[in-house]
């Protein structure tokens, strides 16, 4: 009763106009623009910074049998160097002789530096709305310090090449009761699940904005989430069994996606629907 006639007619117009995406009429373009405006506005006022604060505390807090903090953890730029570290992951680490993304490397530091068991350190890798996980808060803190840095994952070591190829194969691998691969949703332009636009993640132009903004605060569940979680939740929705945290498979996929996005300046942690 307060809306102007044009505003009131909007939903009906929108429904009619979204029928065909090939010939985008004015109202559908408005809808797209409004959704973009929504995404921009939630990004401007993101609570992501709150998680980085917690992460800083955890980074500096002595833990585990060795009662040491993670401050000497080498994320690839040297022990304790956080500046630009996230943007250079995943990469091959000689000490572990494998490709590692941020969370896998953090887990390595928790077990080697802090002397914690893998079981204990991975007991709660994904948090909930009442309490973020240690990994999530740490990721927020560390990723923040790569802002402006181009994504430069490891691509030259044989194990990096191997992981990239495996990640690519996994991306297109159809399996499970619903026959899905990552490409089932993220393989073709202009596809949507409900209203959600699906980025075609094997193409650089789509992978770039996505990989440059993870980890991220998700408004749908008010939680700060990481790439390991994102991959985990995709496999959940593909109706597959659960990928093991920090496994070679998830690291390979992460490296494939980040390599596809390479060169894009990191601008996360982002805010997602």
């Amino acid at each position, binding site marked *: 009763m307060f809306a102007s006639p044009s505003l009131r007619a909007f939903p009906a117009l929108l429904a009619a106009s979204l029928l065909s995406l090939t010939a985008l009429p004015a109202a559908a373009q408005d809808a797209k623009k409004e959704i973009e405006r929504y995404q921009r506005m939630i990004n401007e*006022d*993101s*609570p992501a*910074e*709150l998680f980085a*604060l*917690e992460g800083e505390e955890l980074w500096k807090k002595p833990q585990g049998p060795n009662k040491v903090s993670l401050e000497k953890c080498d994320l690839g730029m040297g022990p304790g160097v956080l500046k630009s570290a996230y943007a250079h992951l995943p990469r091959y680490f000689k000490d572990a002789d494998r490709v590692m993304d941020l969370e896998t490397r953090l887990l390595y530091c928790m077990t080697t530096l802090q002397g914690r068991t893998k079981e204990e350190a991975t007991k709660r890798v994904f948090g909930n*709305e*009442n309490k973020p996980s240690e990994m999530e808060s740490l990721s927020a803190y560390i990723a923040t310090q790569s802002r402006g840095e181009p994504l430069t994952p490891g691509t030259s070591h044989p194990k990096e090449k191997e992981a990239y190829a495996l990640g690519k194969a996994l991306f297109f691998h159809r399996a499970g009761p619903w026959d899905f691969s990552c490409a089932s949703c993220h393989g073709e332009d202009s596809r949507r699940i409900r209203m959600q636009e699906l980025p075609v993640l094997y193409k650089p132009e789509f992978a770039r904005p996505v990989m440059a903004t993870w980890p991220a605060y998700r*408004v749908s569940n*008010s939680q700060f989430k990481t790439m390991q979680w994102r991959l985990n939740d995709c496999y959940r929705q593909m109706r597959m069994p659960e990928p093991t945290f920090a496994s070679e498979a998830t690291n390979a996929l992460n490296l494939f996606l980040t390599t596809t996005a390479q060169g894009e300046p990191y601008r996360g942690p982002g805010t997602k629907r």
Partner: protein
Amino acid sequence: MAGPMKMRATLGEGYTDIRVLMTHPMETGLRKDPDGKIVPLHFIQSVIVKVNGKTVVDGQLSQAVSRNPVFTFRVKGGAKGDKVEVSWLDNLGETNKTEAAVA
């Protein structure tokens, strides 16, 4: 338990923007937890913004403000070093505050 707050007060042209982040569940009292039990009402009712000790905004809120609230307020003028304080009080009597200097 009051989680962290974060604030930034930035000088614009003739005004100062005060952007503040609060950790709070902002429970509506209508949501169910995974076991099907109602999560009790728990939300910030009052937000006070002070500049150099003087209250400039007095806000009353409902449970419809999003979880982990983010506010931007704006004050006239302002100068580098002005002391800004934002505090909140929720329906359970919990409270928290944060301070920052205008930059």
